[in-house]
């Protein structure tokens, strides 16, 4: 085993563990924060009994869920049914590998990081549909179908939105894009022209990808009871539940890295800035969630194909023209 591989192995094991645990811990805190935040929005106080100011509520939730009976519905496809939740959890964590949390803290600095993020993000629809298909439940099946309809809608705008920072920075590596922003300017802050709309486009697509209101169409609990997770209990439900939050958190981190300069910022260490930006975007997702009602499947499709896709195409061209003609701004 040559030294390079050896050091990659050690690096991967250490940073992989750190990133996974950090993301899980932060979503535990994120869930607590969301419940407090939603409580305040609704003139309630949120969790208070579990630990100081209810901080241990997510732990209590997980322990409670793990104590539940594992039920596999009659006539369900056992293999697919059992495989879907682990896959969802792994895919949602996988995108965190290429996110630079500071100049040094990055699990795998891939030179095609952006494409990788889109890839594993797009894979999320596979376990979702597997769960819907294998549950032998009509609500779950409808949820799975809606998940696919949704993924064919937001996919194109998502690709086009992430293309804008790639064009501006001339790099497919996430850390490369952050480096570029650190030495030039943050895309979503200055110049406003393509960066901010591209961020909003990315944000909408991210909400759709992580199934958040107003795009939580596949699990729409007032319509499909619990959508794809209708038949899931215990650990498997926990994994789905977790995967959703992880997806949102990692999506926020990606947005912070691609559009807000990642770890770049004055006065404080890079890690602090990255965490701050990620959490601000994460909070905004929940602010939106607890303010709006949801779209219908066909309306999401209309929005994505007829509004966001042309907008994305225009933004990509605008970004290219910007690089070409803005004096000194791009090279």
């Amino acid at each position, binding site marked *: 085993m040559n030294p390079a591989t050896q050091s990659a192995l050690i690096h991967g094991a250490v940073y992989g563990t750190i990133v996974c645990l950090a993301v899980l811990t932060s979503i535990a805190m994120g869930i607590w924060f969301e419940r407090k935040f939603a409580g305040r929005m609704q003139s309630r106080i949120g969790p208070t009994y579990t630990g100081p100011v209810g901080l241990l509520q997510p732990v209590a939730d997980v322990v409670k869920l793990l104590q539940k009976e594992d039920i596999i519905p009659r006539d369900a496809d056992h293999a697919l049914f059992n495989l879907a939740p682990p896959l969802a959890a792994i895919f949602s964590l996988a995108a965190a590998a290429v996110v630079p949390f500071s100049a040094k803290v990055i699990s795998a600095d891939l030179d095609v990081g952006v494409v990788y993020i889109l890839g594993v993000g797009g894979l999320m629809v596979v376990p979702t549909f597997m769960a819907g298909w294998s549950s032998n439940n*009509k609500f779950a099946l*409808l949820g799975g179908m809606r998940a696919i309809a949704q993924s064919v809608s937001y996919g194109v705008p998502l690709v086009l939105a992430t293309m804008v920072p790639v064009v501006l920075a001339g790099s497919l590596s996430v850390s490369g894009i952050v480096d570029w922003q650190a030495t030039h300017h943050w895309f979503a802050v200055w110049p406003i022209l393509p960066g901010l709309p591209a961020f909003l486009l990315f944000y909408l697509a991210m909400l759709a990808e992580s199934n958040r*209101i107003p795009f939580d169409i596949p699990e*729409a*609990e*007032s*319509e499909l*009871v619990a959508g794809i997770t209708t038949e899931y209990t215990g650990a498997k439900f926990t994994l789905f539940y977790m995967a959703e939050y992880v997806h949102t958190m990692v999506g926020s981190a990606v947005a912070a890295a691609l559009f807000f300069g990642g770890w770049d910022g004055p006065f404080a260490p890079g890690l602090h800035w990255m965490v701050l930006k990620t959490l601000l975007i994460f909070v905004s997702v929940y602010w939106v969630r607890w303010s*709006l*009602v949801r779209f219908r499947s066909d309306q999401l499709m209309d929005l994505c194909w007829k509004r966001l896709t042309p907008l994305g195409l225009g933004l990509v061209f605008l970004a290219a023209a910007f690089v070409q003609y803005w004096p000194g701004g791009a090279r």
Partner: protein
Amino acid sequence: MNQVITVTATRQSAVRGSVDPHLSIRHYDPDADLMLLHFGPQHPSTHGVFRMDLHLDGEIIVKATPYVGYLHRAVEKLCEKLSFVQQTPIVDKNDYVAPMTNEQALNMAFEKLLGVEVPRRARWMRTLFAELQRIASHLLALGTFCIDLGGALGGGSTAFIHTFRERELILDLFEEVTGARFHYNTHTIGGQRHDLPAGFAAKVNAALDIIEARIPEYEAMSLGNAIFQARTKGVGVLDGQLALELGITGPILRACGIDHDLRRDAPYSAYDELVPKVIVRQGGDTYARMRVRFDETAESIALCRKAIDGMPEGPINGYKPIRQPTMAKSAGGQVYVGIETPRGELGTFVIGGGDTPTSPYRLKIRPPSLHALSAIPYIMPGATVSDAVAILGSLDPIMGEVDR
């Protein structure tokens, strides 16, 4: 595949032209093409235990069959066994979102049957209570509708909890008068059981001020929201003529552009003096229905103000306080009394006489929600499952009074 497209293309005409929507099922082989989805009774957004069997083509509803009866409690039969004065708390539980109007309807029917006069103050109090109840009921309808649209874990529940908070103010007022927050038992034959406590007018005005000030906030959270409008406009269009044929009344009928309100057209209690402005909207879609309820809330606030300001002095049960079962005896005859509850015309049909003169021979309640649900087979086909929830929420059924 051709067949599938044919039917989905005719879906709107089937709705608007009042063609029997069940005909469209013939294009399908139900076993091979359609999925039969039991929607309810144990479903988060069927407003209790309502059940619809939906035949789905993809997500489009081809046929919707409503089933009622999961909450049947034999209220009418029970009323035939109980004496006239014992029945008020029983019917409280029918429309469990607007119990005041249930009591009012029942006692008005008995008063007409027994020929009992109601003093003026009691009539004004009934009007005040009915209008307060209307505000509470419409607020709850709006909140639960938002939950139907947005889920219990999202913006819908935020709107719901805010409207629920204001509903509490009205329940507090009722508690002040009757001692109960929900099943009041305050209407009796010939008047009211509980008089208004001292300082009640100020409390009513204070509560109404709070609610009135927050109406723009609800509007921004619900009806004014772009997603809300996208989800509701043009969804579940109900034709006015069809609504009349189905016996639909109340806000749903007024949302179809038909100007009908028993409070103005057949005044009872104090509505001859306090004439309400009837809210009518065109369109007949889900948005129009919610809009009518929303505007009626504001109108009811104005009416409540007038009622509390002009509240006459006098006895609240002047004719004679009927407390004992033997004091109310019917010699026979039959009456029908309909009043405008938050959901429409709540009718009570009573036949007196029979073996026991102290109880009705037959009592029949005509619940507005039941008639509202009868529109489902006509307005659901062509909608998606998401729309189905919105349409059902806009009909605002209360299963307690549907099944009785």
